[in-house]
C-alpha cells in the first residue's frame, strides 16, 4: 500500500488472531484501510466483527499477528513496549465507553494525568489542562471528582483527557454507548467540533447508526473483513 502524505492511519494487510484454548480465532483477516488526516471515521459491525480489535491495533494497544499499522508515518507495530507507551502519550487520545476516570482524582487531575509523563512544568500543565477543560466546556467542574459528575460530564472529562496532549489521532470506543440520547448528542457534537475546528483525526467504534451518521465515513466490518463503506449517504458495498 503506497502511503499518501495526507494519510494519518494506514492499516496494511493486517491480520489478528487469538488462541482460545486449542482453537485459533481469526479476528481480523488481511484487513487494509487508510484514514486521511482530519477525517472522522466510524467503524460499525456486529459483535465479534473485530471493530475494537482494529481500534486497539490503531491505538498501539495491541500488535497485529501479521501486516503493518502506520500512524503519521510511524510503523507502530515495530516499536518496543516502552517506546510505544510514550508514543501513545504524545500521539493518541483515547475515549472509552465507560469513561474510565480515576475516581480518587478531580476532573482537573484526571485530565492532567497523561501530562505527568511529559517533560512539562506545572504551569505548562495547568495551561494545557485548563484549555482542554475549556474546550469541553467543563471549566466550572474542574475540581469535582468523577462521582460528582453526570455521565455526559464524565465523558467530556474523558475527551478533555484525550485532547490534553494535543494528539493528532483520537480513537473512541463507543463513546456514546453509556449515555442518554441528549448527552450522546452533545458528545458527538463535540467530536465533530474537534474534527472541524482542531483538525483532529477521529476513529470511532459505534453500534449506533445515529452516531455513525455524524462521521465523514463509516466502515462496516464482518468476521474481520471490511464489507461496506459509507460516505455520508452513499454506500459502496463489497469493500475489502
Amino acid at each position: 500500500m503506497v502511503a499518501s502524505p495526507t494519510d494519518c492511519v494506514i492499516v496494511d494487510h493486517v491480520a489478528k488472531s487469538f488462541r482460545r484454548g486449542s482453537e485459533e480465532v481469526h479476528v481480523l483477516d488481511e484487513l487494509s484501510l487508510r484514514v486521511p488526516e482530519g477525517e472522522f471515521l466510524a467503524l460499525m459491525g456486529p459483535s465479534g466483527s473485530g471493530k475494537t480489535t482494529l481500534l486497539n491495533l490503531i491505538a498501539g494497544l495491541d500488535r497485529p499477528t501479521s501486516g503493518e499499522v502506520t500512524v503519521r508515518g510511524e510503523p507502530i507495530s515495530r516499536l518496543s513496549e516502552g517506546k510505544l507507551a510514550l508514543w501513545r502519550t504524545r500521539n493518541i487520545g483515547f475515549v472509552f465507553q465507560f469513561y474510565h476516570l480515576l475516581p480518587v482524582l478531580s476532573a482537573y487531575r484526571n485530565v492532567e494525568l497523561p501530562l505527568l509523563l511529559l517533560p512539562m512544568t506545572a504551569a505548562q500543565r495547568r495551561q494545557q489542562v485548563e484549555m482542554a477543560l475549556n474546550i469541553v466546556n467543563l471549566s466550572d467542574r474542574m475540581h469535582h471528582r468523577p462521582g460528582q459528575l453526570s455521565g455526559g460530564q464524565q465523558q467530556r472529562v474523558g475527551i478533555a483527557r484525550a485532547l490534553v496532549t494535543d494528539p493528532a489521532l483520537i480513537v473512541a470506543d463507543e463513546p456514546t454507548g453509556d449515555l442518554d440520547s441528549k448527552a450522546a448528542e452533545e458528545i458527538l457534537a463535540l467530536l465533530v467540533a474537534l474534527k472541524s475546528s482542531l483538525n483532529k483525526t477521529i476513529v470511532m467504534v459505534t453500534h449506533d447508526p445515529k452516531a455513525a451518521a455524524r462521521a465523514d465515513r463509516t466502515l462496516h466490518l464482518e468476521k474481520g473483513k471490511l464489507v461496506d463503506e459509507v460516505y455520508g449517504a452513499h454506500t459502496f458495498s463489497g469493500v475489502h
Partner: protein
Amino acid sequence: MGLTLRLAWLVLDNTFRNPLRTLLTALGTVALVLVVTLVYTVLDNLDRITTEKSANLKLIATEKWQIPSQLPYRYVAGLAQGAAKSETDTRPTDYMSWAFFLGSLEADQSSRDFNSFIFAFVMEPEKVLTMMDELDELSPDSSDYKNLAAAVEKLKQNKQGIILGQSRMKKLNKKVGDRFKLYSRNYKDISLEFEIVGTFPQGRYDESTTFRRDYLNSALDQYQRDKGKAHPLADKSLNLVWLRVPTRDAFNEVANQIAEAPEFSAPAVKVETASSGIGNFLEGYRDLLWGARFLLAPACMATLALVIANSISISVRERQQEFAVMKVLGFQPYQILLLVLGEALFVGVVAGFFSATATYAFINFGLGGLPFKIGFLPTFDVPVSAILVGTFMGAGTALLGSLIPAWSACSVKVSEIFSRVT
C-alpha cells in the same frame, strides 16, 4: 526526578482512596512493628550489656564451683585489693560487696505474700553512689543524685537504715521515716529492724532495697551469742564482690592475682567481667532469646508482609481497569509497578515510623524503661536506633508484601481488559 515527584502525588491520592482499608493495614503494621521494636529493644540491650568494654571495666568475683555463690565475708578485704601482695601488683580502683537478703514484713510464714517481701543488697553504703550500675553514672547536679546522696548519708549514720525502691515502698504501704521489722527467709532465725531513710531513683532499682553490711554482721554475731553456735550462713554470707579496674590488662592481672592467691582457694574464687558474667547468666535463657531473635521477629515480619500483601492484592484486583487505562494513557509497566510499591511503602513507612516512635516515647518517657525481670538486669530503654529499625521494618515488609500484587498490576494486559471482540 520530576516524574517521581509527580507520581508521588498519585501515590498519596491512591493511598487514601479507601481510608478504612488503609487504616486497618496501617494498624496491622503498627501492631507488628511494636512487637518487633520490643524484641529489638531487649536484644539490643542484652547485646550492649554483654559487650565487653575496653576501659573502666567492672568485674565480678564469685565462688568458682558453686551456684549460688556463697563465700566467707573475710574474703572481702583481700578481694577489694585484687589479692595484691606487693607495691607493683595491680589493685582495683573501687569495690563493692553484696550479700542477698530476702525477708518478709510478716512474721507468720502462712500470711506472707509477694507484696510483703523485700529483696535487699547488703553492702557498704558509700558504694551505692560509686559502684552500683547506673547510680554510679548519675550527674552530681541531678535531683536524683542529690536525693540519693542524702539517703546514703543517713544510711551511713543509721546502722538500722534502709533505702527502698519507690515501687517496693509503695507496695509495702510505707513512707520514708517509717520503721518495720523484717523476718529473713534465707538467713534463718534472723530478724532485723529498719528505718526507711530514703529511696532509690525511679527506674532500675524500683523493686530493690539496700542496707548496711555491718548490720547483717552484727545480727550474725548476735545469733552466735544467743544460740551458742555460729549461724549456718555465717561463713557463707558473701555472695559476690564487684571490682572496678581501668583497663583490660588490669582485669587480666587482677584475675591472675586472685586465681593464684592461696587465701582464695577454699572455696575458690573466679573473676570475670560483668558483661561476661551476665552473658554466662543469660546462657540459661539462650533458647528463649534465640526464639525471640530468629523465630518471633521473622514471624512478625512474615505476618506483616502477608497482611500488606492481602490488602494491596485486593486493591490491585479492584483497580485492574484503572491500571489498564493508565497504560493506554502511556504509563509504562515499571511506572505502574512503582506506583503500587509506592503506595505500600508509604503506608509501611508512616505506620512503622509512628509505631516505633510511639513505642520509644511511651516506654522511655511514660514507663521509664521496659522492665525485664530476669536476675538484676536493668529496665531497658528503647534505643533511638529502634525508630530507624521500626521504620525500615515497616518499609521492608511493605515492599515485600506488595511485590507480587505490584507485579500483577504492571502486567495487566490492556487488550485483555478492554477487549470484547466487537
